[in-house]
């Protein structure tokens, strides 16, 4: 039983990171229609930046600055690459974001080298553990789950109750009407990139003590995050949380049957299954998709 619980917590932990990546995907997708392949790189950048900063700054400050820096990077990315290129076809936008993810990743390699780094555990160290129902859980897990929960809740409130959040939602459902209503849609797009980058960076910091940070961790995260986003239904930010946790849990439990070397492949297989069987996600609707397609 305690073994199962280990798997559950392990799955929830990684799953919550996938959820954050998925939320980032959804945010950007719904405001700009772009699938940002570089989403995973934001997570990587957050962790790596915080690690470097933590060498001469207290941990909480390092994290805050790292999040801010990466958020700004996200916004800058949108301004430089996507503002003037909106008229390009889907194929082109995909290729550009892929190119960006490679460039970011290689830049990270040159800035930081290929060594694995990690932030120190926020409380305790790698040996400390909390006993919960017979399983030994690292305190960092609670930090991760807690932080993600706070992020999700905060984002939900932001989108629902603040003016800017509502403006973002308006942009995603009807950009033209939003613009007519006086909303600066360009800035909203930039904001969506910045917010996605920021929450990704925060997740990267949280997970760093457990999973380590490495210059090439971004690609896998992006795919798994995308799998999570698809499971929940693209464009539905909150369903992405469910998708992320589901992918994380499936991956954690996969080691029961499959050799550990194939663990990563589990998430990719889930992605393919989701795409082939139900691309609109468990919460999406086919009719909406069809109507949209025919109208085009």
């Amino acid at each position, binding site marked *: 039983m305690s073994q199962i619980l280990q798997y559950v917590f392990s799955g929830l932990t990684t799953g919550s990171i996938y959820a954050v990546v998925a939320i980032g995907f959804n945010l950007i997708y719904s405001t700009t229609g772009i*699938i940002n392949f570089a989403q995973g790189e934001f997570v990587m950048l957050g962790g790596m930046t915080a690690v470097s900063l933590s060498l001469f700054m207290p941990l909480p400050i390092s994290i805050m600055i790292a999040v801010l820096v990466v958020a700004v990077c996200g916004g800058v990315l949108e301004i430089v*690459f996507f503002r003037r*290129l909106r008229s*390009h076809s*889907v*194929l*082109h936008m*995909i*290729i*550009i974001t*892929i*190119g*960006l*993810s*490679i*460039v970011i*990743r*290689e*830049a990270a*390699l*040159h800035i930081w080298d290929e060594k694995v780094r990690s932030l120190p555990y926020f409380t305790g160290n790698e040996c400390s553990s909390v006993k919960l129902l017979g399983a030994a859980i690292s305190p960092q897990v609670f930090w991760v789950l807690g932080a993600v929960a706070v992020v999700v809740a905060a984002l939900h409130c932001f989108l629902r109750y603040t003016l800017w959040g509502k403006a973002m939602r308006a942009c995603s459902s009807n950009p033209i009407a939003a613009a007519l209503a006086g909303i600066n849609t360009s800035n909203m797009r930039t904001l969506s990139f910045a917010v996605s980058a920021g929450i990704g960076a925060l997740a990267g910091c949280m997970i760093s003590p457990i999973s380590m940070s490495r210059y090439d961790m971004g*690609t*896998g995260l992006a*795919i798994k995050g*995308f*799998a999570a986003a*698809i499971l929940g239904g693209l464009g539905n930010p909150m369903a992405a949380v469910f998708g992320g946790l589901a992918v994380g849990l499936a991956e954690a439990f996969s080691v029961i049957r499959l*050799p550990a*070397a*194939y663990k*990563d*492949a589990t998430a*990719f*297989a889930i*992605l*393919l299954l989701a*795409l*082939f069987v139900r*691309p609109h996600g468990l919460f999406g609707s086919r009719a909406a998709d069809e109507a949209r397609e025919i109208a085009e």
Partner: protein
Amino acid sequence: MTRRALIPVAVLAAILAGIQLAVSAAGRDYYLTQLIMSAYYAIVVMGLCLVMGYAGQISLGHAAFFAIGGYTSAALTTRNIPAAHDAAWSGVLRSAGLLWARPDLYGETLVTVSPWAAFVLAIALAVLVALLIGWPALRLKGHYLAMGTLGFGLIVYRIVLGTEFLGAADGITGVPPWEIGLGIVISERKAFRVVNYYFAWGLVLLVLLLLLNLVHSRVGRALRSIHGGEQAANAMGVNTAGYKLKAFVLSAALAAAAGCFLTHYNRGIGPSEAGALKSVRYVALVAAGGMANLWGVLFISTLLNFLSLRGFFGTFDHAAFGIILIAIISLTPEGPLAPVGRWLRRGRGPQPGTVRDDDTQG
């Protein structure tokens, strides 16, 4: 074969011969190795060009097919089959050329699948996988298809990386040379370099001709119509799902074939050949070559791969292709060679993109 396609191909053949003579005369035979590798990669890229440029379907997992071809060839020709040592049936298969006995490093006898048989099996496997993946995947559009093919590629990568039988992180080495016949041996040995150069580039020219013919035919138009408007193509009687799949499977077979040959030439293969970075590189090359432009893709692919193999980009090798992708697509979506193509076709009337009209002389 059309007169129009043959002349440029003949010119290219002459240029290639000239390059070889010049390089050998200058004593830089090692350039030939990089050119040979570039040739095989060019075959992959031309196949991908058919799928991406003409049919308009993005595939971010094509390196996986190269790897399927290469790894199958490598594994089958290096893994001993103990059961086949004394069995009667193996004698039959050996004389049929399907199995192959030879002494290994320690003087023991090694019975493996022969390179030709391994080649056929590799292609068959690639075709099968392409069918299995392509059938559901090609129903997807845009980013779903991109992610799906990327996911597929990563699964193959994880499999070759994590499987002991396939050499795990070290890949497979000690792949034997392949005697194709007529004195052609696929092997990296210096003595065979020139022969391999002509063989590889001969293959490239053959594939180029076949694809050019395909593109300027009813099939090519069907593919382009899928890219130009899938719904309308369907309404005009084009079986879009069928054609997408055929193009995909053909390109997978080409990639796998290239994988087999290059694996025998390099005497081995490693997991990086299946990685996402390789797949993205192929996509970058198709984009840089102008998407629906076989000549452009061949030229750019050869140039950039050669430079990359020579170490021109140093540690920024991967970054270079990423930057190329971004720059090409944002600045010149039609490919940087588009103005050149238009200049070459001046006086024949305005053409969309870089596709030529059919040859009326037939």
